[in-house]
């Protein structure tokens, strides 16, 4: 669950979910994001770092500003999805093996 856990942890925070929602409208600088929210710029930067570590957003330099955008490859989200998928599929597989072994006995 390592990677999925990271994504879910990132999403656990209401402010971070709000930041992501803002970025869905398009790329924004830290300042632009902070303007919309009742939190300080340093706090927003910290939230963006967590989202970036989870692979949910990425950034680029534009002059002295950093512009954040939702990771267009969506790899963090995608990987979390696969992680989750295989977790449930393998649990189901193991349960089926157990069921068959019981029937044999």
């Amino acid at each position, binding site marked *: 669950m390592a990677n999925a856990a990271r994504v879910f942890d990132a999403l656990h925070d209401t402010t971070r979910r709000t930041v992501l929602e803002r970025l869905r409208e398009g790329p924004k600088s830290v300042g632009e994001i902070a303007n919309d929210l009742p939190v300080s710029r340093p706090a927003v930067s910290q939230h963006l770092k967590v989202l970036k570590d989870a692979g949910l957003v*990425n950034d680029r330099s534009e002059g002295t500003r950093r512009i954040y955008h939702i990771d*267009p*490859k969506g*790899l963090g*989200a995608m990987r979390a*999805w*696969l992680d989750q998928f*295989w977790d449930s599929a393998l649990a*189901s*597989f193991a349960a089926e093996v157990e069921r068959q072994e019981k029937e044999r006995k």
Partner: protein
Amino acid sequence: MNLHVQPAPVRKSIFVNAPQARAFEVFTGGIGRWWPKSHKIGQSDLERPVIEPFAGGRWYELDVDGSECEIGKVAAWEPPSRLLLIWQLTPEFTFDPDLVTEVEVMFAPEGEGTRVDLEHRHIERMGEKADAMRESVSGPGGWPALLQLYADEANSEKGDAA
């Protein structure tokens, strides 16, 4: 673009109380009995997925109406120890013939049972479909779906991890 995100393969291990050969058999021939019914490609209800038992075989979905939808291929068939599948589904569960990701499954005897190690790799190739992914992940289909995943996960937690 300055994107350097390279996701690690998804790796999973599980121990099952059955000999190696039986674990391999349930995983492959018995896939219809454990594959999540909710994960299907076709319009019709899922009957079962089928893994053809030889290298070069097909891996496809058989629906209740008899239609078939490709999932991928069987790249290596080495019972009872190894299976290499080619997964060609996008995160939206649509088949993409140009998408090649690998799912390697190893079965190793351990004590009375079998340890199953699964690795789904080259998943970054899913991301190479950047335009499609932008739609699927940040569009209405993908983003709410992810949040739902998150909600399910959060609800299944007993305590608050934060």
